[in-house]
């Protein structure tokens, strides 16, 4: 096996204990709830008979370890239990909700990268007006809270100008145009902040690379500046940029909770929050586990991409 392939396999193996630990933590959540979880879940319907029935249903009278193993083996088969209230399988709920969150994440990150990286490169390569403008953009993007921006956008586009809907969702396969109309404002709200981060990271990394000796030598060779910047500098500056993009991707997957709530997008984040409010722990467990695993996978893929970009990684673990 080539050194690169070995590196990939090794990282995959390293992710497994993390996922296992994650599953344990998520599993324990339901049992860390103070008081009797079943009573909390049932609320006012908590008659002793109901409590006993539900306990049996959820298998809560078995020892902890066997509960965990049952849950995990179920999860490995895609069975995360049932929504306690509606009796819909959690896996069905997740399958419905995950595409929404993924679409939101993909669109936001794409927009953020398309804006942030080129602007960051130009800000690093040229001083002057471009730099000042990007400085303001970075400051605004970092300081402004994404959901507040979302609300302001709603005020503008839905309230005053009335060109976009303030909330709601239509699946893409059902009606692409409408889907994009509903996604426009949440994507903008998220992408603004993300783009600022990506811009700042790009600018910083590019500045550092453009100051190196090899860039000086490239210029001394008479290579065109365009080529120096894009073919050489950007390639070398890529690792930290890709890392930040990867992190932001993972964060969005799990954390666009507020934006989803704000715009009434039926995504995984919103599902988890409403389930928490309903004390619907089974759903929370499944949702958190899936998101956590996705996050770990995204981190892994990012690491692999960064490793691929730097030829020095082949010679053992240079990262």
């Amino acid at each position: 096996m080539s050194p690169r392939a070995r590196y990939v396999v090794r990282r995959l193996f390293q992710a497994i204990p993390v996922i296992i630990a994650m599953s344990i933590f998520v599993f324990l959540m339901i049992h860390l709830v103070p008081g009797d979880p079943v009573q909390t879940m049932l609320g006012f319907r908590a008659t002793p008979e109901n409590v006993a029935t539900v306990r049996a249903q959820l298998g809560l009278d078995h020892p902890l370890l066997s509960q965990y193993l049952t849950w995990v083996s179920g999860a490995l088969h895609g069975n995360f239990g049932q929504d306690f209230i509606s009796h819909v399988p959690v896996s069905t709920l997740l399958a419905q909700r995950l595409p929404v969150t993924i679409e939101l994440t993909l669109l936001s990150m794409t927009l953020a990268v398309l804006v942030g990286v080129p602007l960051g490169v130009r800000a690093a390569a040229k001083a002057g007006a471009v730099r000042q403008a990007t400085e303001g953009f970075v400051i605004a993007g970092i300081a402004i809270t994404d959901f507040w921006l979302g609300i302001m956008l709603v005020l503008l586009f839905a309230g005053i100008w009335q060109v976009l809907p303030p909330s709601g969702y239509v699946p893409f396969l059902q009606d692409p145009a409408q889907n994009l109309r509903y996604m426009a404002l949440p994507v903008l709200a998220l992408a603004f902040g993300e783009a600022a981060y990506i811009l700042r990271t790009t600018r910083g990394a590019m500045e550092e690379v453009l100051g190196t000796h090899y860039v000086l030598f490239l210029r001394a060779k008479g290579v065109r500046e365009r080529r120096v910047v894009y073919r050489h500098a950007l390639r070398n500056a890529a690792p930290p940029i890709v890392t930040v993009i990867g992190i932001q991707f993972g964060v969005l997957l799990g954390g666009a909770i507020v934006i989803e709530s704000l715009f009434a997008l039926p995504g995984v984040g919103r599902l988890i929050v409403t389930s928490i409010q309903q004390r619907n722990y089974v759903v929370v467990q499944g949702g958190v586990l899936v998101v956590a695993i996705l996050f770990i996978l995204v981190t892994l893929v990012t690491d692999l991409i960064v490793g691929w970009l730097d030829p020095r990684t082949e010679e053992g673990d240079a990262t």
Partner: protein
Amino acid sequence: MSVAVVAAGGKPRAVWRRGILASRKGRWGFAILTVLALIAIFAPLLAPHDPNAIDATQILHAPSLAHRFGSDALGRDVFSRVLFAYRVSLTVAVGSTLVAFLVGVPLGLYAGYHGGWVDTAIMRPIDMVLALPAMLLAVALIAIIGPGSNIATLAIAVIYMPILARVVRSSTLVVVSQTYIEAARARGTRTRSIIARHVLPNAIGPAIVQATILMGFAIQIEAALSFLGLGVQPPTSSLGSMLADGRDVLTQAPWVEVFPGLAIAITVLAFNFLGDGLRARLDPKGVSE
């Protein structure tokens, strides 16, 4: 007094002050934060109205002399509300970061200094926590324990502690490889003494920078949690819960939504500026993010 701190000009306090005043950004950040802190402390004196006083005659009035930031759906003065809400938000932000700092820094120091299995034992669980998206973790914690501003503070502290521990560990690793540490060991100085007098003052710089910046973001996280109803509970208001209130009257009275948001933005900005200013002095190699 440790070598590097002496080289920096004597007492740690001198390093601190020179760090803040050294750059324009740092000065601005410090100035704005001082003003903001004073506002938070003296909110009761500065507020022209009782923030919870309902007045049916003053419903949804635009900003005016009587109500500098306008009034909300219950006739309450938005300016006064922002002042008091700011207090709450800032307390949560500063408190949570401080707790994370006080717990995370020693952990990172020990992990970095001792290395080996101590390092693994401390950092493995910390890396696990870092493997979870922050908001999700906070929400999950609140799900277990229940909502409230103290829980929100705890949740943010839990998110921040691993970050600070990591930063300190990185800079500790650098410090520990320096020869003056070897020299201290060779003199037979006790470990506790080495860490306290030599490692800590030199490794703590990046953590201070990171903590400063994190404090700014903590306000945003608190706002997000309270916005969802998971943070402060009525009748207490924080900037986040005000943002939730403002939504209901968004088109009729945008000022209810605008001003709390601006307060958050200015605070994040100020903390970021201060952190950037400090970075030049305390974290030249950019260990913090």
